């Protein structure tokens, strides 16, 4: 017994044999569902956006520092890695935005039925994809 919590896992069968109590299934046992996937994606995109604020802060500080520093940021953003990061940032922002509105609707007591939850989930996925592509299309057209 390595952990005191193991003591809580010991049990006896009706014929007196000592057994380990069954654990609830681990996460990878469960089939992926739109509800659970979008739930964790809200946190994943929240963390991604937290890290992404570094890019926003860098961009603002560089703009305040002068043309040289600003050119360095613009150079990073225009690089393949920068474009990938920025697109991920855009998609994360739209996902967290739309799913956040979904959460606010739940908090207000709307949309709790399972069919509605599934429909709003797919609506978030589609809205995220369409908005991300649309904003990038407009952005590249303006460039």
């Amino acid at each position, binding site marked *: 017994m390595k952990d005191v919590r193991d003591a809580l896992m010991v049990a006896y069968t009706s014929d007196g044999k000592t057994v380990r109590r069954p654990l609830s299934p681990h996460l990878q046992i469960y089939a992926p569902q739109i509800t659970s996937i979008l739930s964790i994606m809200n*946190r994943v995109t*929240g*963390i991604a*956006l*937290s890290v992404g*604020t*570094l890019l*926003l*802060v860098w961009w*603002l*500080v*560089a*703009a*305040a520092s*002068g*043309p040289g520093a*600003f*050119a360095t940021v613009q150079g990073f953003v225009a690089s393949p890695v920068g474009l990938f990061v920025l697109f991920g940032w855009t998609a994360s*922002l739209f996902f967290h*935005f739309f799913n*956040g*509105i979904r*959460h*606010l609707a739940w*908090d207000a007591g709307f949309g709790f039925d399972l069919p509605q939850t599934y429909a709003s989930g797919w609506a978030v996925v589609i809205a995220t994809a369409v908005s991300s592509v649309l*904003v990038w299309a*407009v*952005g590249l057209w*303006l*460039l």
Partner: protein
Amino acid sequence: MREDISINVRRSQLGRARGVGAGHSGVGHWRTERITSIALVPLTLWFIYAMLHLVGASQPGVAAWVSNPINATLLLVLIAITFQHMHLGLQVICEDYVANKWQMALMILGAKAASLVLGLLASIAVLKLALT
């Protein structure tokens, strides 16, 4: 519903009010997270519009845009509310997934410190662009 079943909570109303629930902090965190997220809905839409407006802009172009008091004010509000929402969200993630309570406390403090410093840095950059 069976009427003969009752749950006897051995706690006074005052004790319940003082204890402010299992987290001992009441609804303040939850409520602030919601209020900041509502505020971020229009601010995010404005931010996306602003970023599209600034696509390909030069440093003097960005500086001129931020020197508009409305843009500077909205940027400062966006920065303040974003970092407040961010540290509240990161706090919940730490509370849910970090088992060791000392490690959890350190990570929450780290998230709050990073939010404060990054928010101040971004705000000072905006103020410098707006006021010079």
